[in-house]
């Protein structure tokens, strides 16, 4: 990985796969995707596929941030169409998978370079003054027309990025966004079965999601999960109120994608069938058929967890439901 800061190369076929500080200097690792679409459940899976090709081992390039900024100036790319925020285990991957069926849509599912850029200032205070231009340039690089027919760039973030929403809004004040959530008991049941990264104390690095409680490490697993879900729901609620986000419930999926959200997600009426076909299989385990689990999963959680969820997460959930009811009239239907 070398071929450092050439800034006159055509980078249309290349995507940033890592953004990191190395002794104070932030670097970009670029990988060639060429015509490879991003159809995997997560960006990380698409990266793993691209890195199987020997070209990307021998010819990957590393540049400084300046090369990213200059590439953005030369070739701005499609601006983000919509941002998908979520409380985790709420159908955001399903939504991303449905949209990724369309050649017209470039779908980024939790790209780690974006997470690194959004949280750069927690690791490196000097990054703060450059962060907005980095984030615009990064999404510009993702918004290149690699296949030719792209007209939309959909960005699904990591659950904890809801705390960095104001920063993202400063970069893209006009891009609509939504917040996906569901009954916190269902979220807790899913994390108890198979915990997400943010449910393991300390794993995701510096984030306002982290509990500041000095006893954080000694909390029971169910209390940790319930409190983390509560904080995500409360943050989603507050950002929706302050920054005009649309509250969307898991139970509305997959129908809402081609229904009330169609305009926000830049779907044409002719896209509906292909998008719905993308909902037929389990979004994170594509070998399995997808079935909404609201009826068949009265969540198998113990009473202690129920009590913790009641205490920490039910109140912001109820408030989100009330907000969603208020918002319904303002949403456009598929024409």
């Amino acid at each position, binding site marked *: 990985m070398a071929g450092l800061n050439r800034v006159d190369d055509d980078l249309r*076929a290349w995507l940033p796969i890592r953004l990191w500080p190395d002794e104070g200097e932030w670097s970009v690792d670029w990988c060639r995707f060429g015509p490879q679409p991003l159809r995997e459940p997560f960006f990380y899976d698409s990266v793993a596929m691209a890195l199987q*090709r020997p070209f990307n081992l021998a010819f990957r*390039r*590393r540049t400084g941030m300046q090369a990213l900024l200059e590439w953005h100036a030369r070739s701005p790319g499609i601006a983000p169409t919509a941002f998908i925020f979520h409380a985790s285990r709420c159908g955001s991957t399903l939504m991303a998978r449905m949209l990724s069926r369309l050649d017209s849509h470039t779908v980024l599912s939790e790209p780690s370079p974006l997470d690194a850029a959004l949280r750069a200032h927690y690791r490196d205070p000097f990054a703060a003054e450059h962060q907005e231009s980095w984030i615009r340039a990064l999404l510009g690089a993702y918004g290149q027309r690699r296949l030719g027919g792209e007209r939309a760039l959909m960005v699904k973030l990591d659950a904890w990025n809801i705390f960095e929403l104001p920063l993202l809004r400063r970069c893209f004040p006009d891009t609509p966004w939504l917040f996906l959530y569901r009954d916190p008991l269902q979220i807790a049941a899913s994390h108890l079965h198979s915990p997400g990264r943010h449910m393991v104390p300390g794993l995701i690095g510096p984030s306002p999601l982290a509990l500041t409680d000095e006893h954080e490490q000694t909390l029971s697993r169910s209390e940790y999960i319930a409190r983390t879900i509560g904080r995500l729901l409360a943050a989603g609620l507050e950002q929706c109120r302050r920054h005009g986000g649309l509250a969307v419930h898991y139970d509305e999926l997959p129908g809402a994608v081609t229904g009330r959200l169609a305009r926000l997600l830049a779907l044409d009426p002719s896209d509906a069938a292909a998008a719905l076909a993308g909902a037929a299989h389990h979004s994170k385990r594509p070998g399995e058929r997808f079935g909404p689990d609201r009826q068949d999963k009265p969540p198998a959680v113990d009473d202690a967890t129920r009590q913790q969820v009641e205490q920490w997460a039910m109140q912001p959930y109820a408030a989100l439901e009330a907000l969603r009811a208020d918002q319904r009239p303002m949403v456009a239907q598929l024409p």
Partner: protein
Amino acid sequence: MRAAVAALPQDAWQPHFNTGYYNGDWSGVALRSFDDAPLPLAPGNGAAKDTAHCDGFWREQLARLQTELRSARLLRLGPGASIHEHRDYDLGTPEGDLRVHIPIVTDAQVDFLLDGMRVPMLAGECWFLDLSRPHRVDNHGGCERIHLVVDCRPSPWFTAQIDAGFLDTPASQPSRGNEAFAAFRDHVHADPALQAMLDGHQDNRAFVHAVLALAADTGHCFGEQDVRAAIARGRRDWAEQWLV
């Protein structure tokens, strides 16, 4: 030492036990080895003893290393021969042996590459290198390269010698193959059509052949080992983000 090496009978040289990892002549003479090693040149865990080749002259030379010695080997890499890139993980552990290289016969045509950089070892010097890092050797020249390679136990004396030598150790340099590959990479990075052509290969072997053919056409001089080292480096650069 050069004269003592020349005096060794030809049949003293045994091929290196690790036959899958080199091309050409890579052979050695054990001066000190383990009583439980399957072959005189191979590692073992038992007691270390001088071999019949370790005469008074070699004993005197080895005694200059004032620490416990595990093994001592004369290793010869013939003209045109190469040792593929590898890592000696056993040398990287806190309790592991420390390996020193003492070049006896070498020249500017030998590329000893550590982490892709050429280590400028000259005859008569004594080098300690972290060989748990990726390294390879290419003898591009017409002479045999012969090193005395000694595995030592860590000791305060040894640490003091490393500290004392650190200041006047010359820096490693880019290797010829590496520089040629880097120039070729710039050439590819500037040409989207070449990128698409090379990125069409899923298979490593076909990819390496395509790269070498294109390099030859465009006057970039490097070999298969340089391409394979670049592939290994690209994989490592990605994996290292998860190492703490």
